[in-house]
């Protein structure tokens, strides 16, 4: 049992971290404002680096690593508030690969096409022959494809098959959001969950991403608490602030440890993978939201401004919570999963 990344894994994290620090500083969100989807220009570069196929078999044109490496990378995506469109490409390429659509797979792996992601708005039902219901579409404006998934399976559909599309202002304004209707849409690719658990993988990556959000807000709060002086002292020397930061660190340690553990259990296809992954999503999204709120509080009035990046993390944490089953849904699911104490 070893939850610490190996030196090879550290190198992978280092590669993506250095890339994101240069190409995707969080300050970019301020410049782009509500223009939306500011990260699409990153996709071909991330594709070149091979990150969309990190955990895909080499026989399927992937890098052939595991969900453990992928989870480590998604933590970095979370830290940098990378657009949730990244889930569309990672998971979309996998669906295309498993469905045998090699040409589509390669376009998605290279990041040359965009994949929007759909989340249920009202009564979404998906299947190999027909998808129906009303959805929210994230990052779908320039997307050629839309990713759909639930516990039964995962699909890619052509973006133009979505009807009644209506752009709405997003709570998380750095993402584009639309409402749309699916009326008897047949997927281009369909992967059954018993063949490949894409939904479980999606929750695992969301948990890793949320863990990254939580790490970033913990670090922001701690840094500010060291710099900001009041009453002639750094505010971090006061227990009222210090303990808020400590709570953020405690929650983050829980989210990190479980995210890594769940990623390895998933990679091993252990019988308790759903139990660990759903637990991980619950703990990580809850942590992301609580840390985001605490970070705003530690920053005081400055934390309430648009200029501070604190609000982006709060808004993104709510997106991550609602994607593919919110806290309430996941709790209900977890309560009814068989326990595995292995």
């Amino acid at each position, binding site marked *: *049992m070893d939850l610490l990344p190996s030196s090879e894994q550290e190198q992978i994290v280092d590669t993506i971290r250095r890339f994101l620090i240069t190409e995707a500083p969080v300050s970019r969100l301020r410049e782009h404002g509500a223009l939306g989807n500011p990260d699409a220009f990153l996709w071909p570069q991330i594709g070149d680096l091979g990150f969309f196929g990190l955990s895909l078999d080499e026989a399927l044109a992937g890098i052939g690593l595991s969900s453990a490496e992928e989870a480590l990378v998604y933590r970095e995506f979370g830290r940098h508030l990378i657009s949730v469109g990244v889930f569309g490409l990672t998971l979309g390429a996998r669906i295309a690969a498993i469905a045998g659509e090699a040409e589509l797979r390669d376009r998605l792996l290279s990041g040359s096409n965009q994949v929007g992601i759909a989340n249920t708005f009202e009564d979404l039902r998906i299947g190999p022959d027909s998808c129906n219901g009303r959805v929210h579409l994230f990052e779908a404006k320039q997307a050629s494809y839309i990713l759909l998934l639930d516990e039964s399976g995962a699909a890619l559909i052509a973006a133009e098959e979505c009807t009644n599309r209506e752009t709405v202002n997003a709570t998380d304004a750095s993402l584009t959001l639309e409402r749309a209707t699916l009326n008897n849409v047949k997927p281009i690719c369909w992967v059954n969950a018993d063949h490949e658990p894409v939904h479980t993988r999606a929750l695992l990556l969301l948990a890793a991403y949320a863990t990254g959000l939580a790490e970033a807000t913990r670090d922001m709060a701690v840094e500010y608490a060291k710099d900001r002086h009041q009453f002639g*002292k750094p505010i971090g020397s006061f227990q009222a602030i210090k303990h808020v930061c400590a709570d953020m660190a405690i929650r983050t340690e829980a989210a990190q440890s479980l995210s890594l553990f769940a990623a*390895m259990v998933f990679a091993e296809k252990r019988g308790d993978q759903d139990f660990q992954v759903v637990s991980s999503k619950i703990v990580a999204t809850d942590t992301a939201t609580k840390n985001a709120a605490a970070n705003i509080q530690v920053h005081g009035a400055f934390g309430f401004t648009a200029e501070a990046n604190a609000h982006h993390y709060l808004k993104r944490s709510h997106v991550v919570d609602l994607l593919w089953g919110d806290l309430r849904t996941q709790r209900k699911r*977890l309560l009814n999963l068989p326990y595995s104490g292995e």
Partner: protein
Amino acid sequence: MDLISSAEDKEFRERARDWLNETAPRERRPHHGEAMREYDKNWQKVQFDEGWAGVSWPVEYGGLGLGLSHQLIWYEEYARAFAPDNHLCFVGLNHAGPTITAHGDDAQKSAHLKHILTGEKIWCQGFSEPSAGSDLAGLTTRAEIDGDELVITGTKTWTSHGHLADMQELLVRTDPDAPKHKGISWVIFDMKTPGLEMQPIEIMTAPNLPHFVQCFYDEARIPLANVVGGLNNGWSVAMSTLGFERGTAQIKDQIRYAFLVEQMIERARKRFGTSNLDNDEIGARLAQLRADMAAARAMAYMVVSRAQAGIQGSESSLMRAMVGEVQQRVRRLAFDIIGPEALENPEDDDWVYFYLRTYSTTIAAGTAQIQRNIIGERVLGLPR
């Protein structure tokens, strides 16, 4: 990162599982007194006699000389077999023993380690004082050097099971003129030493039954050779002792509490019905605890992973802070699930005693608030 266990690990796990399933005592553990002492000592002796005590302890002092991963497997199997905790052996096995192993001289190791493993000697702790709790380094119990002896005068309190113990790990001030962290020594104290008097202190779980004692030392003389880790070096010795408490043994509790949550889910389904539970506040709390217990267990694995990699630090405080509160929430929720029966406290009670007991999990071995100071200052680097 990896989960894979070697063939040798698997073999050890299977042997441990078989042995524990066959041998672990099934009779109820008494909560107090001489009966509890006998029960704990016997169970420890059985473990020692059959070659299972001290998995990661040195072979020359009666241990198995194996690594942390084996220790982890042992604790996992121990919890899985519902083997009873022998709490009276806790201080010896998890504080005093590892401290003497790390800092003691050969004579101290030979004199004490094996007796801890065999259960022959029960250890207690003498750290806190009436005026030195969270500010432990402010302790004033004095030990004056007189030839080759230390003469101890002062008082210690919150000593769990002091009246049932043979030995005590004791922090005393040996240099009153040095800065407060620099004048402390960690010493081995025999509870039969003349000059020691004890006064019982009852606790909230069981009024009328002593749990803590307050110790009064009136010129109690012990050999100077009982100082462990060097004169006036007791603070750093004690800090490593507290570090052990936050270490690997936690996995046992994590697994136990996870099983407990499963029992509570069963009980709640019976009382409220499965479909009601899905939309109920109790159901939401149970699910959250299932997730939190999974996280607590992963945190224990993280602590072990860091220890295996030789990473020294205060990060294990993160797990301890989380676990103390989760355990309270588990027991509190059990109370809500049980309903009116929770107002009854029968002899064979399995709930009330343990619920009340969890009020100590955010106090003992450093309060939740002190933990947060440690995390803030030593993990996050915030100013004092």
